[in-house]
């Protein structure tokens, strides 16, 4: 009983820290609704197999791949919702369409490293790729973004 409670507390601490990261990354990868569903499934899987996953070196990266697998099984294509003008009046209306044209990893790198301020190492750890690869995806993604929106980026 004590072990169960301890596990629950440990998972809660982990999930509170990992949930935004997973949600943001999976949202960037597969779209808003599918990303949120995939995050929920990944965290549920993490709780179900917490004994094994807690011993892993990078449980958040593992659960990111679980979420990607879940999203692929559902076969939902990345569908970025149009931004309601009343809700986010300052967001460029073309932003979702331009982001949709990026590859999945470019999109994730741009969202997380550029938009959310993650370090390249943090993005690389979650995606399971090298920091240099993240840098390449980021630069190409930003170039596409710059071209698509016709703006000059400050980075």
């Amino acid at each position: 009983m004590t072990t169960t409670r301890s596990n629950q507390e440990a998972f809660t601490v982990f999930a509170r820290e990992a949930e935004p990261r997973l949600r943001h990354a999976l949202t960037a990868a597969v779209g808003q609704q599918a990303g949120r569903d995939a995050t929920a499934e990944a965290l549920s899987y993490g709780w179900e197999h917490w004994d094994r996953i807690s011993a892993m070196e990078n449980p958040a990266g593992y659960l990111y791949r679980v979420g990607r697998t879940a999203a692929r099984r559902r076969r939902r294509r990345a569908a970025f919702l149009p931004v309601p003008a009343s809700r986010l009046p300052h967001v460029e209306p073309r932003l979702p369409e331009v982001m949709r044209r990026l590859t999945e990893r470019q999109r994730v790198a741009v969202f997380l490293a550029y938009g959310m301020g993650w370090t390249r190492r943090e993005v690389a750890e979650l995606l399971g790729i090298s920091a240099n690869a993240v840098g390449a995806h980021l630069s190409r993604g930003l170039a596409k973004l710059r071209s698509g929106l016709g703006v000059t980026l400050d980075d």
Partner: protein
Amino acid sequence: MTDLRTQLRDYLVETTEPIGVEELLTVERPERLSPAPRRRWRAALAFAAAVVVVGLSVGLAALLLGGDDETVPPATTPVVTTVGPEVTSTTEAAPATTAAPPLTTVAPAPLLFDEVIDGTAAAFYTSMVLTSDGNPVTASYVRDPAFDDEPMTSAIRLVRCLDPLCAEPPLTIDLADVEWQGAPHLTVDPLDRPVVGFYGDDGPTILFCDDAACSGFATRLVEEPGGARHLGGGLGLRPRRLPVVRRGDVRRRGASRPRLVSRPFLRHGDEDNDRDDRVQLRSRALAGRT
């Protein structure tokens, strides 16, 4: 206007609602998910998949290229006849089986090597293959009366049947006079052009016919570091007529060590042969003689 970084952050954060962690702990999952393959297994899985794809491709290609030709006319199948004298003798030996069905046997097909090879010549060391049409092609040595005083000198004769049972007079082509050592080896490429491997005066030689009737040909010598030895064992063709020769080492007194000789050991020997006239290669169609 707000900078793009802020737009991205707001778009990502504002359009997705956080997931309550406490709710997750009470959720009953309807299905068990499998995680994606780990990175260190991806290369192995990709390699295994590539091997399977290549294997299937090669097998399919071999099946398509090497399939038997099923278009042989039914009239050419062997004729089944009842043999009179044998039936009588068998019946007398077993009178109690009078109710048994009459014995039948397959008449010998009109394919006799003694007839296919020019009957006036003593042919030996015959090698035979079938073309894509099922027509036999043979390569053998025949003794040339001009070289009676040189018993090891013979001509390589190519006999190409014009039908599967060699009922029509075949085409006979004498390719070269050689001091033979070992049997010739014969194969045909996908265009039915014969390829003959033999041990010529300059050593192991491969002869490539220009067409199915071998109206012309080119030769290549099998060259190997350490000196040429017997050509033995067999001759095969890879795609694009790249020959593979399985050779034995005569110095091992029968306990040959098979070797595969491929393109790197073949050198162009035509020019040397023509200039030095060391190998008297001649090609003449002798259809009229048969």
